[in-house]
């Protein structure tokens, strides 16, 4: 048995993998939050609930329509995105002229409604969701055992995150988005339909959350509280990385996941709070976040 720093390598790398997986979810969710905050100036408290809806859509597709994981991977984010578009168009957009606090309160209320409705329907014990056949089993890498599905989660999240980063920083559409984030009045004065851009951004941001929900379904139980457990840590991640920074959200999410994993190995008592300790330190030293720009 190989040991590193006195810890068996299986344990160390196992925890690091767990940390990387958690980090992947942190990254995906904080990316959506960052994109939404950058464009809409709204702290989307409903983000965790919409992640949970993504998982539930996957579960419902399977149990009611017999549509498996690969269908869910495409349809669930679409469904959540559409729900986001409806929420933005009918409710959120009315609050833009007011204090940001109202947007926060609205999304918080929406989260409670969504979670409450599903809790009423399905209770809090989770629904199981099977790992797709293609991704069952794992690889023995010598220093650790890598379950295929876990590896897939990390890869898929990375692809989604980097794809989003590329779309925003390197494409024409992304340029429209960045410009509208900076000066929406002027962008509209050039003839671009900014309200539509805003709606699409919210829809896309929550679709990312829905995607995370599908990825999470086979790992965690599909239950109405899965989002609220996760969302507090994700907020801490966004604060640390810097609101409105795409790269910051990705790097911070993965990094903090790894940090949590390492903490679990060497000092498990602190593993629940290590993210918040880092957040406190960052707020004291660089309040705009590690990658943030002063707003």
């Amino acid at each position, binding site marked *: 048995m190989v040991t590193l720093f006195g810890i068996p390598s299986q344990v160390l790398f196992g925890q690091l993998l767990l940390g990387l997986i958690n980090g992947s979810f942190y990254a995906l969710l904080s990316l959506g939050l960052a994109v939404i905050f950058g464009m809409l100036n709204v702290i989307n408290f409903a983000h965790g609930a919409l992640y949970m809806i993504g998982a539930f859509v996957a579960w419902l597709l399977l149990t009611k329509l017999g549509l498996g994981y690969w269908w869910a991977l495409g349809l669930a984010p679409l469904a959540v995105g559409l729900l986001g578009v409806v929420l933005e168009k009918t409710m959120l957009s009315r609050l833009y002229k007011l204090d940001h606090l109202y947007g926060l309160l609205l999304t918080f209320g929406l989260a409670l409604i969504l979670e409450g409705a599903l809790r009423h329907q399905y209770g809090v014990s989770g629904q199981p969701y099977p790992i797709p056949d293609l991704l069952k089993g794992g690889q023995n890498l010598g220093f650790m055992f890598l379950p295929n599905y876990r590896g897939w989660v990390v890869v898929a999240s990375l692809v989604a995150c980097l794809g989003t980063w590329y779309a925003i920083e390197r494409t024409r559409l992304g340029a*429209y988005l960045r410009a509208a984030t*900076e*000066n929406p009045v002027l962008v*509209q*004065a*050039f*003839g671009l339909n*900014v309200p539509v851009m805003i709606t699409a951004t919210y829809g896309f941001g929550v679709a990312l959350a829905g995607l995370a929900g599908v990825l999470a379904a086979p790992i965690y139980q599909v239950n109405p509280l899965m989002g609220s457990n996760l969302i507090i840590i994700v907020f801490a991640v966004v604060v640390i990385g810097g609101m409105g920074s795409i790269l910051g959200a990705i790097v911070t999410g993965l990094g903090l996941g790894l940090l949590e994993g390492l903490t679990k190995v060497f000092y498990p008592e602190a593993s629940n709070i290590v993210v918040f300790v880092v957040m406190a330190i960052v707020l004291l030293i660089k309040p705009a976040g590690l990658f943030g720009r002063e707003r």
Partner: protein
Amino acid sequence: MPDTVMTRPAATGTGAAMLEISDLHAFYGESHVLHGVSLEVRQGEVVTLLGRNGAGKTTTMRSIMGIVGKRTGSIRFQGKELIGMTQHRIPRLGIGYVPEERGIFASLSVDENLILPPVVKSGGMTIEQIYTLFPNLKGRGSTQGTRLSGGEQQMLAIARILRTGATLILLDEPTEGLAPVIIEQIAVAVRKLKQRGFTIVLVEQNFRFAATIADRHYVMEEGHVVDMIPNDQLAQNMDKLHTYLGV
């Protein structure tokens, strides 16, 4: 008491009326900012809005683009009524806006800034033609937009409108805060644009610059137009202008 426009035939630009503003009132929230502005711009003309700070010149520009709070009255562009139109459709009729603050985006490169405003009409300038007009912008494509100097940012702000095919250009204080050498460069560019047939509404406090380019000057004071002076009568009206502008 609303002032009427003194319509004397312009020295140049005898084309059809491109922009007609009648009795425009504008409000920022509760604040009544424009009190019945009326003016007209014919195709191919360069017309300036002169006046002191707070006279309502920029507000008039913003009213045309629809980015002011509430407006009453009439603003017609090539016969189409702009008040009541969905805001983002107005530039698509062929009106380009170069705001006072220039509005170069920090999160975009120079290239991205240049191609941001969508093409609204055919006949816009090509990138090559733009670089010929503004050689300072050539080769700066990947630089962050706000890293350019003030004068270069002003050129970029004008250049990106020229690409869109807009035929009416609203230029708000293009020379503000710029060195005389740069002002001259911009003046040369604006004169070339006039030669190419663009119609330009120019807000300027620097009326020496305005006099070298414009066909007619509207003077604004406290939210309405108080006078109109054709450029060839500028010399005789200097005293009057000094009173209006408080110089």
